[in-house]
């Protein structure tokens, strides 16, 4: 592509990004908004590709567009459309309406100012020579990182601590979801066509996941993309109305959920006990350790995302069942 074509492409891409975002936010129809948001995710994935960020593009396609959209759609499922305003009990009168108008405009203006400020700041930042110290340091140390894909190196070696905590975030989210109680049972089963699709889509997805995981070391891909793909397989199954979607129950499930963080932590602490820094892989072992961590992380991510999609703990795994006795009443004041 020549540069003029590129500019047109960029322009179209940016216009569609902004337009989709605008459209997605302008509507009050939740489902419509979500679908537009998913579309935005796909366009963004293209944009990442355009900006030479294939790892992000893959993740965005799988998670940002795919899974987030699926989650949102699932949540929108039971909801009336459009939703009633959240605070129905708030007093509303004409004065308040006038105030509301003023407020809308004030917020809009302030948001515009926010954008303007950011642009101003970025223009200033970009006007200085680029800081290449960090990329150079990364390429210098890439050999010792155990992987050849610099993004994976950053994710799982240089800034592995971030990733560890990120997995913890994921775990927290799903535990939080569990804490809210039982999964909402039953989705509307899809049609027969979809059912047919499922038969070949799921194996493909699983294979893709495996590839992404393996490729992550040297090419775009990695545990997150792989985990998300794996989760997508589960989502597809679930959408097809399958009750058994490959998730274990009970202790095994908890093991899988904990595996990502657990293995990560285990590796880190083992190294620590061996006299190395926490997560300071010996260069010779780095590749294998990263792959090990990534594998565990993939399963965890997949299970977690799937559970998040299910919106709670699947039945019969709930520890609710363990004890349902009433708390003994205390002498009251």
């Amino acid at each position, binding site marked *: 592509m020549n540069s003029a074509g590129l500019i047109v492409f960029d322009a179209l891409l940016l216009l569609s990004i902004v337009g989709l975002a605008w459209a997605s936010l302008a509507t*009050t129809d939740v489902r419509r908004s979500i679908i537009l948001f998913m579309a935005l995710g796909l366009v963004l994935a293209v944009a990442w590709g355009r*900006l030479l960020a294939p790892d*992000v593009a893959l993740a965005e396609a799988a998670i940002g567009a795919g899974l987030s959209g699926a989650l949102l759609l699932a949540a929108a499922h039971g909801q009336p459309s459009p939703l009633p305003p959240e605070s129905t009990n708030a007093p509303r009168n004409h004065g308040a309406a006038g105030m509301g108008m003023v407020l809308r405009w004030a917020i809009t203006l302030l948001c515009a100012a926010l954008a303007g400020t950011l642009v101003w700041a970025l223009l200033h930042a970009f006007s200085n020579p680029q800081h290449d110290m960090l990329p150079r340091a990364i390429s210098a140390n890439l050999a010792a990182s155990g992987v050849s894909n610099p993004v994976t190196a950053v994710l799982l070696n240089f800034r592995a601590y971030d990733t560890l905590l990120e997995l913890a975030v994921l775990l927290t989210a799903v535990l939080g979801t569990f804490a809210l109680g039982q999964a909402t049972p039953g989705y509307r089963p899809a049609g027969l066509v979809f059912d047919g699709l499922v038969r070949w889509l799921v194996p493909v997805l699983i294979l893709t996941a495996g590839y992404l995981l393996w490729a992550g070391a040297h090419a775009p891909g990695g545990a997150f993309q792989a985990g998300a793909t794996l989760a997508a397989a589960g989502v597809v199954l679930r959408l097809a109305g399958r009750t058994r979607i490959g998730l274990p129950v009970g202790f095994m499930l908890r093991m899988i959920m904990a595996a990502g963080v657990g293995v990560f932590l285990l590796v880190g602490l083992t190294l620590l006990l061996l006299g190395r820094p926490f997560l300071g892989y010996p260069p010779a072992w780095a590749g294998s350790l990263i792959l090990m961590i990534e594998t565990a992380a993939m399963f965890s991510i997949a299970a977690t995302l799937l559970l998040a*999609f299910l919106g709670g703990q699947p039945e019969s795994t709930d520890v609710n069942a363990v004890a349902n006795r009433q708390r003994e009443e205390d002498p009251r004041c």
Partner: protein
Amino acid sequence: MLTTQILYALAGCVLLALGVRGALLHASVLLRIVAINIMGAGVFLLLIAVAYRGPGLAADPVPHALVLTGIVVAVSATALALALARRLQVERDDG
């Protein structure tokens, strides 16, 4: 100074602002969550634009890694928010 970088960063800023506006003005919880996601997308766009070094040049991997982490964090938060929203709906329906 790269035009592409600036343009995409600008789009990121716009997305961020749009997201903030949406998150503040929408009454529906789900729409707010969508808006926050769009906000996140704007920030990610900004970061990726910062990483961009021009055609043919390797981009800065650090922001890429950050965005990857950010995406997962965002989806986690979204999942929890949705679970809460659903639970709230159940409570409302019951009450």
